[in-house]
């Protein structure tokens, strides 16, 4: 799959985002790939109708001198349907196989500061959520109980990394003086699961049963009234029942 990536040059207080649209070659990050592919011609910069892209100045971002980047807080990517920046690139540094801008991967938005995010404080700001071009897919509002007031909800802006393009519209629009939601390069924004980890529930689904024959499903304890007693109302019943299980 082709990916648009963003890198970040974090130098001191500065944080500029480098548009790193590139092949995701095996064993190399998109950023390394991009540095071998972009000849710093600036044709993408010229063809971006929103003046989003800039070329990095000497010394701004080490090896990325001269490569295109954008600062989401100033001018985010407007996610053009026809992706003129990619069409302009003569080398394929911006991957020509990217045809649907919703598949772009310029980075991932992260709600970096829950303590100042107005929604987390119990208000209904929702601005980042509303401006997202992939609203309700890349970013959703997850409700939870507001324990401070006792009778309100918290609508937590929640980014779903696999759908977020990293366009930065949310970061640009955050109403706070310094955005509480920021687009980070994927390698900073995301953890990496170890190869040997399996998610039991996914494996069960894929396998149509547990991977290990004869495994015993022990009672799960969840918070709530009467948590360790399955007989109590509010207790938990597993969705998948082991064949022949008596409990």
């Amino acid at each position, binding site marked *: 799959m082709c990916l648009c990536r963003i890198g970040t040059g974090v130098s001191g207080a500065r944080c500029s985002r480098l548009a790193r649209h590139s092949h995701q070659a095996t064993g190399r990050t998109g950023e390394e790939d991009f540095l071998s592919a972009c*000849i*710093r011609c*600036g*044709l993408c910069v010229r063809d971006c109708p929103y003046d989003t892209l800039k070329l990095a100045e*000497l010394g701004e971002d080490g090896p990325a001198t001269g490569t295109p980047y954008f600062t989401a807080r100033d001018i985010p990517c407007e996610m053009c349907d026809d992706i003129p920046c990619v069409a302009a690139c*003569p080398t394929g540094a911006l991957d020509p196989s990217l045809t649907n801008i919703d598949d772009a991967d310029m980075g991932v938005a992260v709600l970096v500061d829950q303590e100042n995010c107005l929604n987390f404080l119990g208000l209904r700001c929702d601005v980042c959520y509303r401006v997202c071009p992939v609203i309700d897919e890349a970013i959703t509002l997850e409700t939870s109980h507001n324990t401070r007031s006792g009778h309100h909800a918290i609508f937590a802006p929640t980014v779903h990394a696999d759908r977020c393009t990293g366009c930065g519209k949310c970061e640009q629009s955050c109403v706070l003086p310094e955005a509480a939601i920021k687009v980070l390069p994927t390698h900073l924004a995301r953890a990496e699961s170890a190869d040997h980890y399996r998610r039991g529930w996914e494996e069960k689904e894929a396998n149509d049963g547990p991977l290990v024959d004869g495994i015993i499903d022990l009672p799960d304890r969840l918070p709530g009234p009467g948590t360790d007693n399955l007989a109590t109302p509010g207790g938990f019943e597993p969705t998948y029942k082991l064949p022949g299980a008596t409990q």
Partner: protein
Amino acid sequence: MSARTHLPVGQEAIAIKGWIGAHRFLLLRRASQLFFLALFLVGPWFGIWIVEGTLAGSRTLDILPLTDPFVLVQSMVAGHWPALTALIGAAIVVVAYAVLGGRTYCSWVCPINPVTDAAHWLHVKLGLPKGWQPKRNTRLWIALAAILASALTGTIAWELINPITILHRGLIFGLGFSLALIGLIFLFDLLLSRQGWCGHVCPVGAIYGLIGTKSVVRISAANRTACDDCMDCYAVCPENQVISPALKGKDGTSPLILSPDCTNCGRCIDVCAQDVFHFTHRFDNRIGALADLSSAATIGAASPDNGSTHHAEIN
């Protein structure tokens, strides 16, 4: 040697051909450098989009792609197989300079050339010492090192510091720190190493030199019998080691300047009061005065006369 050797370089040529005549190719070259820069600048400055991009890669009139071959080679060894557009762009550039003489790029297009020329001018004015002079082929080693570094680091290594594209980008996308780098090159050529940058360091020039090894367009010292050893051409030539084989060659040797180091700047033509040099092609081995060469076919009877006058002068 008479007092004439102490005349300032080019004075005799100015006296004979007039100031304009003695600076013809210099003026043309400045015009050409400005022209190529302007092609790139009228877009961002006035919205007239003839050429977009930079010297590293550009698109003319929305169709013609051009790519810097040295940048592309680094990109390829760094592990990226470029899209067809870039490959075509590089092929066009290579073919053009293979015909025109690779280092024609250096003297007619490169935006650093006016900077290093200015440094040289001041250097001569101030009478500064030659300074550090690394071997000419140092630039080839630098080119090789840049290619190796690209392969090892997976980045386009020379582009980190390439002042040509940094200046060009700076001019087109807005100057910032790039000016400082250009200042450094100026100071390097002025204080550390006379004509050091283009002559000994720049790997881009080195690669263009390689591209133009067999180029068709060449300078010929066809009229070398008229040379009166004023040494002005050696004084103005940025690569003066290329002159001797052509100018001082024994009878029967080619009068062509065949070294790919020659930048085809034409300053030797300008500065020579005896009209020894002229532009020609690499298959033109004729020797004789320019006037003879061009008129020989039409007014055959006139040329022996001319020839004998020359001999009389020399004697």
